[in-house]
């Protein structure tokens, strides 16, 4: 299961499409802002995804704060988080890693490159990489 945290509807649709086309994952859950994401991961009826794709520019609560809170909680401390964002600012990259992101990927402009990036991420993190979730 994959948690996609993305506020842009077009990017959401294109990401889901890429995941579907490449047959990477069965279930995808989408959170549209930081509050929703934290609710899903830390609230009642929480989900335990194998991977979180996290955009940084989110309304209400931003991606960096979500990351911080995820890493602060015992239950989600080891959750694989890939930051997938438009920002290429050095500060964002450094801060993301400092807060415990596993990977930082800049969203490509061209859809073909974007789709390929999503495929690679999906294959690596969901198939090749060993997730800490042992159930």
């Amino acid at each position: 299961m994959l948690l996609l945290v993305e506020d842009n509807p077009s990017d959401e649709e294109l990401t889901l499409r890429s995941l579907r086309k490449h047959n990477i994952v069965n279930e995808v859950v989408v959170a549209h802002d930081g509050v929703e994401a934290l609710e899903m991961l830390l609230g009642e009826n929480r989900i335990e995804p194998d991977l979180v794709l996290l955009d940084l520019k989110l309304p209400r609560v931003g991606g960096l704060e979500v990351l911080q809170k995820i890493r602060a909680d015992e239950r989600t401390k080891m959750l694989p988080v890939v930051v997938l964002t438009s920002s290429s600012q050095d500060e964002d990259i450094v801060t993301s890693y400092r807060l415990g992101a596993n990977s930082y990927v800049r969203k490509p402009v061209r859809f073909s490159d974007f789709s390929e990036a999503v495929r690679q991420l999906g294959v690596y993190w969901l198939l090749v990489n060993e997730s800490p979730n042992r159930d």
Partner: protein
Amino acid sequence: MSAGLRLAFVIAGGYLVGAGLWIAVSDRVVAAWIDDAAALSVVQTWKGLGFVVVSSILIGMAIWWFERVRDRHLEDLRETEVRLRASEQRFARFLDHSPLAAWITDGAGELTWGSKGYRPELMQGDNRRAVLAGVEAALAEQRSLVSVERLSRRDGPDADYLVYRFPADDRGESIGFVAADLAERVHDASQLRAELDALVYAVSHDLRAPLRSLTGFTTALQEDYGDRFDEQGAHFLSRIQDASETMGRLIDGLLELSGVSSQSVKRKPVDLAVIGRQEIERLRRSMPHRRVEAVMPASIPVSGDPQLLHQAVVHLVGNAWKYTADRDDARIEMRLERKEAGDEVVLSDNGRGFDMAYAHKLFTPFQRLHGEKRFAGTGIGLAITQRIIQKHGGRIWIESQIGGGTTVRFTMG
């Protein structure tokens, strides 16, 4: 003979003649008139005294008259001097109060006068070289020179000055200088530039997401509804994709260009030959059909920002690779040339070349000198490279001939 001397001779001569005549004649007359020797003696004495009295009155009058004339002259002189000094003071105060440094030198550049704003350090060492550069030639043609020069200061960091040099006479023996500290103005300009770059960066950045949607959903159309389009429809879709590709490249170019300015330059040892070779290898792998000879020394060591210089070399090598595409014996060369004024990095190709008449457009973003179809590119690579080199304090320039290859030279400042 001067007028004064002539006057002296005339007066002395006149007195000599007059007094001599008086003495000769009066003595004879009195002697003939008075017989008594005692009486004659008394009369002679009185006559002599009278002569002395008259002489002294005349001398006194003459001297008083001359003094008056002299006083008048002195007063005129003093008045002129006062006026001259007032005028000189007015100019000196004007120059001293203005933010300019003004000074005059002789034909050899040695100082003859300097305003309060002038400091000797402006004409010493490297500053002297910069200020006097080209002055001799300009002076020979009675021309003036003006340029912005970066001068060093003892009491602060280097600053940009607008320096005028001009002939101060028409014999080439006097040179005038005026220098204005541009620090304020240059700061404003660089602030504007920073704001502009931030704007360009922000806009380009925000264009990426919609562009991704454009290409994404067009691809979705092609993939999922491709069979519903006839040949014409499929063609239209592919044209949309092409246009989006171009837009994507332009946006990436703008992002790179505005991004360069906001970065600070880290000075580290960088080997340009390594970067050059890596890029050539990468191009060879992506276009294995191309036959290109690459000539470069084992290493070209410079000091600069590794990331920025990587970008610059990639752009230059990429251009050379691109514009030699229609040659089977393409040759790209990179080398370091040691020159007096500073080392030059040289990158040359034997490709298409271009008309030097349009050389000034080369570094302008998005200006291209060849038709779009033949040589794909955004036309922003050189603008980015120029900015990178300028950030390092260097200069970059290009020489080329149509059909005769192109040579890019730059210094690292």
